[in-house]
Structures are given as structure tokens and as C-alpha cells.
């Protein structure tokens, strides 16, 4: 069935079709309509689940942890400051190896208050042990939420999954989305599966004092799980492709085969970059695009291009020019980095064409501020 709806409503629909048993969420712009829609589904009886209308995002993640540890599928959604308030529990969920799935609608961090797209919120969570997706269309939001549960609950993974997309650019923009039948989704998602659970007939204690040697083992098991995730993400994506006709991969390539420079970008900027590639090709330039869809685990081995132009919508200040993905990929070739679009500053295909042409001349930096 084709529907036309906003990214947030599609995210809520996908979450509903994944049949979570417990949802705990707190509203925050621009995620709010995800929460509103889910509350509506539950109150209308269209989704048979418990919806905990928590008093903060810290509590939202804590409630998901409690529910997941008791043995049921959970869902939450947040953005920006909500994600930051959650930060402690985000670490907790990963260390507890609970397969929670969360939507994060990328939004800038204050002050001043800025509700527009910026990835510093989720990029700041990149070391928490969550699998991180950055998606580029409403269709991909739907597909990735469904895939996320399969990945998170896979016995070789057992790590939580965060699916991020741009505030407003996707969250509030309507697009056509192909929504599969519920039965088809049901047959793709298995029964909820977790590594451990709280059960009074088999009492266990989780999370008490742990000594350094054991702690190191726990961390190493997470490392292995994250390594496994690379393969599982691809397997799940492939199986999804066979069943639903769409798959995306870890990195989505566009005209990279003969490219002189490959643009590396995520999310909405990557969609815009696709247009820029066509424009550049028309101008006779051999431009290509590698859209980074999965940021954790980072698919380093996929980046085998001679020259790359990385566009970051998030910064780690004090780390070179600040671009996070730029810094991560710097070792893999001749890489030019642009920081662009912070706080929702518009980045359209013309800007990306300009960045490409600047990189050709050896220029890089903060686009629209430092270099123009």
C-alpha cells in the first residue's frame, strides 16, 4: 500500500508494525508527532501496547531498559536535548545489551534554541555502543525501523539501535512510502529475543559491582557484537530486499566506479548530493557519491576511493577542522572536509557543487563561513 506522509508519521507507523509491547517517550520538537501518533494508535486500540507517558527522556530510556530487561520489545523516540538528557541511560542500555530501538530526529543543541537539523546530538552518542543509522528518505525510515529490530535482537548482536534522520527536512516532509502488509512484516520479524531477562522463577542479579577484569570482558563482548553487527546489518538488509524489494547496504554508492572525487555524506545532505553528482557529471566532472548509512559500526573497508570530499553536519571542536566523519575517514585516502549545514543552515545541491569545485582546488573548511 502506498501512503503519503511525513517522516515522523512513517516512523510511528513502522514502530507500530514492529509490534512493540512497551513504548516510553517524551515529546520534543521536531520528534513530537512520532509520540502523538503512537499515543493515538494505542488509545484507538490499533496498537496493543503499553504507552508510558514519562516525565523526561532520561526516564523514557530507563523505562525502556526496565521493560526490555523484563523480556518485551520496546520503542522510543527523541531528539536533540532529549537525547542528551538520556545520555547516561543510552550507555546503560548498550552495556546491558538490551535490544531497544530508538528514533532520533536530528536537531541542533542550544543555546540559543535552534530546532533545525544538525547531527551533533546523535554524533555525540557515537561512543555509547549503539548501532547508528542515518537515513535519507521516509521510505528508508520505514524500512530501517523494521530492519533495526531484526539486527538489535539478533543473537550475535544484542545491541540497541538508533535510527536518525533530519529534523523537518524529513520529519515534517511528506513523501510517498510503500507500506507492506502487516503479515509480511510479522513474518520478517521474529518473536522478541534477548540475551537475559528478569524472571522471578529464575532470579538473577544484573549490574551489581563488577571488578576490572570482568568489566574489560564485558566491553570486549560489546566490541565483538559491534563487529558482528557489520555482517548482520548486511544480511538483514539483503533478506529485507528479497522480501520487500528494497535494500540499502552500509554505504550506498552512486556513480563511484570512475569517479575522480567521491562525496561522502549522510542523511538529507546525501540526498541533495545525488542531485549535485548529476549536475557535476553534466559539467563533465567525474563525481561520485558514497552515502554513509551506518555510522556505527563504521564500515571503513568500504571507503576505497582515491579522493574523498566529506561533508559533516556535526562537529567535534578541537579535532582538526571539526568534521567527525571527515576525521574518521581521513586515514583512508586524499580527503577534503567541509563542515556545513549546522543548526539547519541550508545545504542544497548548488552548495555541494561549489564544495566539489573548491576541493578540486585544494580548498576545504567551514562552508559558508570560512570558505565560500
Amino acid at each position, binding site marked *: 500500500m502506498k501512503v503519503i506522509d511525513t517522516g515522523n508519521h512513517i516512523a510511528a507507523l513502522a514502530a507500530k508494525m514492529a509490534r512493540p*509491547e*512497551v513504548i*516510553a517517550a517524551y515529546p520534543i520538537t521536531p520528534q513530537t508527532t512520532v509520540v502523538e501518533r503512537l499515543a493515538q494508535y494505542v488509545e484507538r486500540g490499533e496498537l496493543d*501496547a*503499553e504507552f*508510558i*507517558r*514519562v*516525565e*523526561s527522556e*532520561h*526516564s*523514557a530510556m*530507563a*523505562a*525502556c*531498559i*526496565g*521493560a*526490555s*530487561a*523484563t*523480556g*518485551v520489545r*520496546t520503542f522510543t523516540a527523541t531528539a536533540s536535548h532529549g537525547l542528551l538528557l538520556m545520555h*547516561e*541511560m543510552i550507555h*546503560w542500555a548498550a552495556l546491558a545489551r538490551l535490544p531497544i530501538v530508538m528514533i532520533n530526529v536530528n536537531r541542533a543543541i542550544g543555546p540559543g534554541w535552534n530546532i533545525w537539523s544538525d547531527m551533533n546530538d546523535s554524533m555525540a552518542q557515537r561512543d555509547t555502543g549503539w548501532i547508528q543509522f542515518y537515513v535519507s528518505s521516509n521510505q528508508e525510515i520505514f524500512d530501517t525501523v523494521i530492519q533495526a529490530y531484526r539486527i538489535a535482537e539478533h543473537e550475535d548482536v544484542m545491541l540497541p539501535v538508533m535510527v536518525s534522520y533530519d529534523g523537518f527536512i524529513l520529519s515534517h516532509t511528506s513523501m510517498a512510502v510503500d507500506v507492506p502488509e502487516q503479515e509480511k512484516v510479522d513474518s520478517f520479524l521474529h518473536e522478541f529475543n534477548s540475551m537475559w531477562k*528478569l*524472571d*522471578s522463577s529464575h*532470579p*538473577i*542479579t*544484573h*549490574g*551489581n*559491582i*563488577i*571488578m576490572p577484569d*570482568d568489566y574489560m570482558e564485558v566491553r570486549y563482548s560489546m566490541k565483538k557484537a559491534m563487529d558482528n553487527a557489520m555482517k548482520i546489518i548486511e544480511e538483514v538488509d539483503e533478506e529485507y530486499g528479497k522480501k520487500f524489494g528494497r535494500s540499502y547496504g552500509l554505504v550506498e554508492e552512486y556513480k563511484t566506479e570512475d569517479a575522480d572525487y567521491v562525496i561522502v555524506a549522510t542523511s538529507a545532505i546525501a540526498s541533495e548530493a545525488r542531485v549535485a553528482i548529476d549536475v557535476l557529471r553534466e559539467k563533465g566532472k567525474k563525481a561520485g557519491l558514497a552515502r554513509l548509512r551506518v555510522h556505527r559500526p563504521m564500515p571503513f573497508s568500504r571507503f576505497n576511493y582515491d579522493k574523498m570530499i566529506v561533508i559533516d553536519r556535526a562537529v567535534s571542536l578541537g579535532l582538526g577542522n571539526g568534521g567527525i566523519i571527515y576525521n574518521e575517514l581521513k586515514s583512508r585516502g586524499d580527503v577534503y572536509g567541509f563542515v556545513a549545514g549546522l543548526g539547519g543552515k541550508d545545504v542544497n545541491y548548488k552548495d555541494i557543487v561549489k564544495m566539489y569545485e573548491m576541493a578540486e582546488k585544494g580548498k576545504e573548511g567551514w562552508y559558508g563561513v570560512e570558505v565560500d
Partner: protein
Amino acid sequence: MASIKNFPKEEYVLKGHAACPGCPITIALRTALKALGNDVTLIVPASCSAVVQSLVPKTSFNVPVLNIAFAASASAASGVAAALKRLGKKTIPVVWAGDGGSYDIGIQALSGALERREDFIYVCYNNQMYSNTGIQRSGATPYGAWTTTTWTGKKEMQKELAEIVMAHHIPYVATASIAYLDDLYEKMKKAKEMEGPRYIEIFSPCPPGWRFDMSKTVEIARLAVQTGSWVLYEAINGKIEFTSYSKMLLKGRERKPIEDWLRMQGRFRHLTEEDIKRIKEAIDEKWKYYMQIYNKD
């Protein structure tokens, strides 16, 4: 009325735990679990109880335990409760938190869970300070008490969390003490049979924190009640009834002098006559109010 002699023989706090000698936590939890039974899930935030369980991969608590971040116990319990409901299980989620995790850092999550009428029991064992980090002031630390963040004595009075909790209009609120285990047991039993949010606060004197000998824990807890410094009551659907020894005080029995209680604790060693007068006046005021409001029959 329950009697200690008749408590169930089952033990859910096992030998080999890591509590200090004279610790009130194990007394409280042992009794609470005897009343509640083992069809519970304990949710324990950062606190001494996280240490008392002992080290991974062992545990001394023979019921399921979810350790959780300091500010998160009531919200994690909300998630546990929701999941248990989905699974159709009768297991009771029981938060087991200290006063730091309840009065201070966890009060937002607690208030939220109470207002949402989550189906769980919240137990605050109140030792009037942050004991796990090594004796720092909390919102429950009484006026004048020495802690490592109030070297010359706390300058402010404690707040009354049970009264704040009562403002949420929940089915059951009770205060208890590790010196009156029959009373504590009865209250846990009552809470077990109810639905919705239930709150029980247990007065728990800490030997190293309050600077008294480990053999005196129960004695000091008892004196706190007998001097009227700590009060035992319960509120079913908002209706307050004093219980045990506090009920006798309400009916007119004379309170023991507060100096007797203060003198037993090193944390009050530096108090001036002025300080003691202030503490005395506060207790007198409190009881004057109780007499007016609750001594109606």
C-alpha cells in the same frame, strides 16, 4: 499483628553479602522480602544496596535484581511494571533505594511514576545521608548533623519525602523503622495486597555514617521513634493513622528526651545548646501539629 517469631522462614537475603557490620539495610530488606515473598523484581539505583549484593558474578539477593542508574529507579520500575502487565505476570516491581536516590536525584522520576499511578512498590531506606559515597549530606540529613559536606553541621532542616509523596494521592504511604520489624512487616504485607503506586520509607541508622557502635543500630532506631524524631504512620488512600509506638505517643505517652538520642551519635557531638534547643522545638512543633490533626478519636 505479626510477630517476628512468626515471620516466614524463607530467606531471600543470603549469607555472604557485603554490608558493613550493624548495617540496617539487610535487616530491612530481609524483613521486607519475608513479607513480599520472592515473586518480585528489585530495582536498585546507585546506593549501598548495590554494593551489599556483592560482586559479579555472585549475588546475595535471591530475587531478580535490576541495578539501574541513580536517577532512574522509579522510571525503570515503570518499564518493568508495563512489561509484567504485558506478560500477564503477577510479579511486583519493588524499588529499593536510599534517601539520596529518593529525596534528591531520583525525586523527579519518583514523582512522575507516582502521578502516572504505576503499579509498583517504592521503598526508600532512609539513612539520612549519602552513605555509599562516604557520608555526604542529603535532603534527608537532619539539622546539625555532621557529614563530609557539612563539616560544621547541616544548616538546614530535612524535608519530609513521605509527605511530598502523599501529595500525589496514591493508595498507600507508610513510614517504618528497622527497630519495629513487626510494624514494617505488616506494612509490607498491606502494600503487597494493593495495586498502584505504594511508598514505604524505612528509617535506617548507619553506624559509620552516624558515628555510633555497630551494636547500637536497633537501639538508635528505636530511640528515634521513642523521642518522636522519627514517626511511624501509614496512609491508606490519604487517611493517616499512626502505628506502633508512635500511636502511643499520639495517645499521650511521654516522648523520651531528644538529647538521649542525639548523645548516642558522633555526628551530633559538636551541637551547641542553641542547636539542641532548635531541634527540640522543631520536634515539639511537629507533634503539636500531629496532636491537633490526627488525635481525633
